[in-house]
């Protein structure tokens, strides 16, 4: 099969995955929209009390913006955990992954098909969050201070989260890790790596831990590009790390993914249960 044929096959397969997800999640099931509203309401329940900690001179709109960005980053982590990482396990459980492997298609076909769904999910979810924060506190005052930096931070965040999903997904299909552990990781990770909180506000030890991970840099750069935080290191250094570290992390995760996959081919599936 020629290279162009393989590309055409890849695109067609990804399109099929996309169409089937649209039909199943968006058209047939109301669960997609109800799930979005539910998640935004849960987050609002837990985030509302944060406003009680603000300085008297800090405007409510600033706190609302902080919360909006915090929720946005948290939800980005969530989709990478559940839509991308957990999806591999889910596909394995439903027998879909076996078919993908046997068909000779790349597993990444599924990711390419899911990503547009994920992005539309995120946009809708954030719109609901915006409405909720506007009703309960005040509308978030989003201001793009540096558009280029914003673009860089979003790309960098996407790469980091995709790499993380590959590590998580391949670990899940090659081991018997339970859903409860993933649930725990999905809560703790955004907090511990500076996803929700600006690095300058983290306790010293926690900040050090956050800086050791690739997650903290894009999140911090994102907040900085929106004028919400002052960087704890020179901007040039932060930009350089935000490019290099996610790239290295992606390369590592790809190698890890291949290794786990060959382990799966050799040893078979460890467990077939979800929880």
């Amino acid at each position, binding site marked *: 099969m020629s290279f162009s044929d393989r590309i055409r096959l890849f695109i067609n397969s990804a399109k099929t995955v996309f169409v089937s997800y649209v039909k199943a999640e968006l058209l047939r099931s109301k669960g997609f929209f109800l799930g979005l509203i539910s998640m935004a*309401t849960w987050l609002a329940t837990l985030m*509302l*009390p944060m406003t*009680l*900690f603000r*300085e008297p001179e800090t405007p409510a709109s600033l706190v609302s913006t902080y*919360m909006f960005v915090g929720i946005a980053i948290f939800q980005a982590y969530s989709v990478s955990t559940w839509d991308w990482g957990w999806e591999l396990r889910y596909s394995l459980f439903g027998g879909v992954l076996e078919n993908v492997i046997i068909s000779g298609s790349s597993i990444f076909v599924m990711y390419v098909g899911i990503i547009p769904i994920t992005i539309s999910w995120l946009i809708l979810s954030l719109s609901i969050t915006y409405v909720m924060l506007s009703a309960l506190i005040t509308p978030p005052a989003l201001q793009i201070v540096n558009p280029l930096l914003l673009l860089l931070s979003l790309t960098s965040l996407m790469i980091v989260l995709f790499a993380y999903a590959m590590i998580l997904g391949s670990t899940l299909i090659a081991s018997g890790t339970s859903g409860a552990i993933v649930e725990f990781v999905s809560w703790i990770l955004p907090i511990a790596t500076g996803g929700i909180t600006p690095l300058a506000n983290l306790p010293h030890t926690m900040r050090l831990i956050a800086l050791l991970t690739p997650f903290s840099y894009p999140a911090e750069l994102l907040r900085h590009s929106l004028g919400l935080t002052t960087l704890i290191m020179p901007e040039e250094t932060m930009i350089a790390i935000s490019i290099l570290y996610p790239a290295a992390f992606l390369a590592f995760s790809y190698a890890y993914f291949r290794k786990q996959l060959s382990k799966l081919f050799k040893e078979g599936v460890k467990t077939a249960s979800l929880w």
Partner: protein
Amino acid sequence: MSVFSLIKSEMLLVYGELIRRKQALFTYVAYPYIMTFFIIFVGSSVGSLENFEARVGSNPFLFFITASFNFLVILGIVDDVLWSPIYDDNIGTLPYVLSSTTPWFLRLLIIPIPRLVLTVILGFTSLVPLFTYLEGLEGLLTSLLLMGLAGLAGLLLSTFAILVACSISMLMGESWRLLNIVRPLMMILLGVFYPRVLMPLAVRVISYLLPSSHVVDLTLYTLVGKGTPEVLTVLTLLGASTALAVAYGPLSYSSTKSLETKKLREGVKT
């Protein structure tokens, strides 16, 4: 079957499951601490603990451990009542429930009691240690009072929760996803984590209509007044709360009957 026999059999069912699933029991103990840590950690990064104390008039650790405890107790009631019609429908026990001599409404009132008793007792692992550590004997007494109030808040929400569960099932069918929106929304409206006095007027008005919101408010007065809110405030809030719970009684009873009639007319879907 007498009410006590019903409560006893529900207790055997719930506690038996908890003994088998110790992980769930551990989660019950850990949840108030996890939520308190999460809110205080993220909150203090937005501002400071001093700001919170100045704004609310209460120690943030005591406030949020109480709020998380109330959350656990109230959610126990809400979940047990809201899921019950869907659960029975899904596992195929609804025909037995409807043909039983025990009225469905009574069953719905009794179902949450075992979990309510358990979650209130679990105050000894969250409220009591923290209050006693921070405020000594006075703190111990306050924590016991707060445990009682949380139990009352849960109990008084029963009729309203039945009304919501049956009305949603009547109007929109059994949807756990829909109920998953109602659950957090109820927590916001009850003012569990965010005092209702700080909410916009429209939201506050809806909050006044929920029986337990007044008891949750009383919890706040207890925290701010260090265990001694004014007698008139106590009586007003308890009175409003009880009156609302009683007022929702006939409505929730009719909604249960309507749902029952609908189920008998349409049959159980498989």
